[in-house]
């Protein structure tokens, strides 16, 4: 269903596919529908995979593969409901498959570590500001690295606006397991943030 919010309005392709179909109206083509979903979800999907630890090329490959599967899904006229959660679920399974093939599941992946190190290397102007910013970043990095992989993924998806139930579907976990993961993550981050 379509709600005209600023969030949707800000997305150029977020309108066409939102036309609820009349029985007599010509259907939106598969490519139009795919393009709409791509415009809405590609960046967040890519970021999620990067956040899971996928390198740039792998994140792009897996995101594109997820959208190719969506194309097939749409071409077969399957239900087009909650595509966002569907895409995340497919992408996450592709990522897990990739990990299994590579046989290198680790608690904190090298790419994730590199990513954060790279993010934290960003220089800031001004000595005082730089010191404060660096201190804050160091603290955040330390706090984030204390989270388990599931906690990081759950909190990432929650920040993307997924409901707990959807996150549970994406990660293949129980509802309350996800709630607990997010709660633990927020407890850790909130505790550390105190006084900053």
């Amino acid at each position, binding site marked *: 269903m379509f709600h005209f919010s600023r969030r949707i309005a800000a997305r150029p392709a977020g*309108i066409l596919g939102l036309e609820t179909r009349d029985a007599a109206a010509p259907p939106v083509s598969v490519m139009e529908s795919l393009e709409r979903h791509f415009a809405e979800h590609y960046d967040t999907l890519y970021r999620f995979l990067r956040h899971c630890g996928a390198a740039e090329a792998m994140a792009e490959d897996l995101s594109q593969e997820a959208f190719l599967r969506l194309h097939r899904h749409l071409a077969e006229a399957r239900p087009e409901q909650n595509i966002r959660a569907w895409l995340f679920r497919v992408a996450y399974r592709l990522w897990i498959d990739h990990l299994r093939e590579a046989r290198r599941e680790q608690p904190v992946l090298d790419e994730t570590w590199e990513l954060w190190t790279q993010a934290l290397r960003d220089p800031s102007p001004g000595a005082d500001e730089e010191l404060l910013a660096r201190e804050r970043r160091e603290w955040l990095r330390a706090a984030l690295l204390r989270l388990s992989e599931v906690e990081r993924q759950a909190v990432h998806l929650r920040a993307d606006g997924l409901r707990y139930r959807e996150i549970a579907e994406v990660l293949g976990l129980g509802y309350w397991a996800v709630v607990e993961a997010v709660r633990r993550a927020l407890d850790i981050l909130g505790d550390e943030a105190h006084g900053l």
Partner: protein
Amino acid sequence: MAFESGWTAGNHPPPGELLVAWENQLPREQAAPILAHIQQCWECRARVERYARGIDAYVNFRQVYLDPALTPRPGGWLRLAARVRDIPDNQAAARRTLRTRIPRGVWVAVPALLAALVVIAVIVSPVRLTASVVLDRAVRAETAQPSRPAPRVRIRRAGRLIAADERVLQAAHVDGSRPLSVNSFRTWRDGLRSRQDSVTTFDGEIRVETKTDEGTIALASLTVARTDYQPHAKHVELRDGVTIDVESADSSPEHETLPEVTAQPGEAPTPAANPGPDAEKREALEMEVRWALHRIGADLGEPVTIRQSGESLSVAGTLDDPGRRDQVVAALRGFPQVSVQINVAAPDAQAPAHAEPIEPSSGAAPGPLLVPRLLNDLPDPAARAAFVSAALRLSQSMLRHSWALRRLAVRYPSPTENALPAEVRASLAQLVAAHQEDLRSSAREAASLWKPYAQFDAVETGARLNWQDASRAVLRAAQRSDHLTVRLLTASGNDGLTAADALEGLRESQRQLLATLAGVHP
């Protein structure tokens, strides 16, 4: 997880429940006592504040440090589109993917199991009901009883009854003298190089359905009686949207007035013909309903749909606000013949759907493009807020009206519009004109507002288009314009846009929008 009805001081809800209640993801009756408890329990309130700090810290860190490093390289859609084009056959691709995903053992086990099932099926059911078997029997039955009452033929385009046309029947391989002929169906089916058959048995009938990518027919089905294999119905779908339904006279009650056969030699198939009197009334009623919704602004993007289903007209939708629901229902109260089903979205039992992406309380992320200039030009925060609000409101208005126009264009393509009764057509023209005028008015107001930052040129008349074709270009221009407005004023992003580029894009999209509108046929 069990929920207690009341939480008192010293008796705290589990932290997980506290979180989901605070995040408005619990049903109201479960969340209410927890939220009330938070009000009176400092310990739980402190815990919730800790969650808030955690969210704030995480979202800020992500926006400032992580997301900028996680932007996909541009051109993603082009690469995907190229990959989609490279897929020779979606089904083949699906098979390939399945092959790679399913472990090898399963590939061995599944065919073995299927083979066993086939053997069992053959033993249990000595004659397998395939499409060929059904058609052979039906041909024999038809030959044995050649004279039957003349069947009823209905031809529809986009759901509307249109006049019968020999050319359409010919394209559909429907023999005009014997429309229900099994033989013609079988001849067509046998002539296909690739086809997909399915046989369905239901309520004393057997239906053979054949889909194909060849020729003018996309799908055709034949329904025969299970007892004597006499043909009851035939359904053909052509690729251009025309459907032909043939029903034996004894199986279909007289529902619709059939248009006369008006085929003229050498004339192209009629895209749409005059609807019958009932259809005319329905069209008129639908148009009045559209106007009623328009008067309360309920045709501008809210999830309210109007459907014609057979003889009836229904308005359905799900709104967030009970007040708005009442307003829509009240607007339609004058149409007792219209079925109205407007629901109010309610949280479901497991997890209510009111989650929103989390926003940071203080944004250190790269700001909207025009903010530095706005800070300089409009030092008064109230003036800045007024400018931003006005720009967003106008942009949204343009987007909504262009969306409404597009919806009308999809509902009433030119052939459908031409087939409308004159009064309904005039009413539609007025509705279209009303949206166009609102669109122009918002665009003019936006031009005036943006004058300090972008000079909108005098509008030239664009290519001459009918309003249906123009609606697509108008919607695209409004979308582009809205995207840039939001990017300039409220949204951060790592798209490489500069303020000058965005303003130029805004100017261009506004020009396109107005030029397209100016070129619309009256």
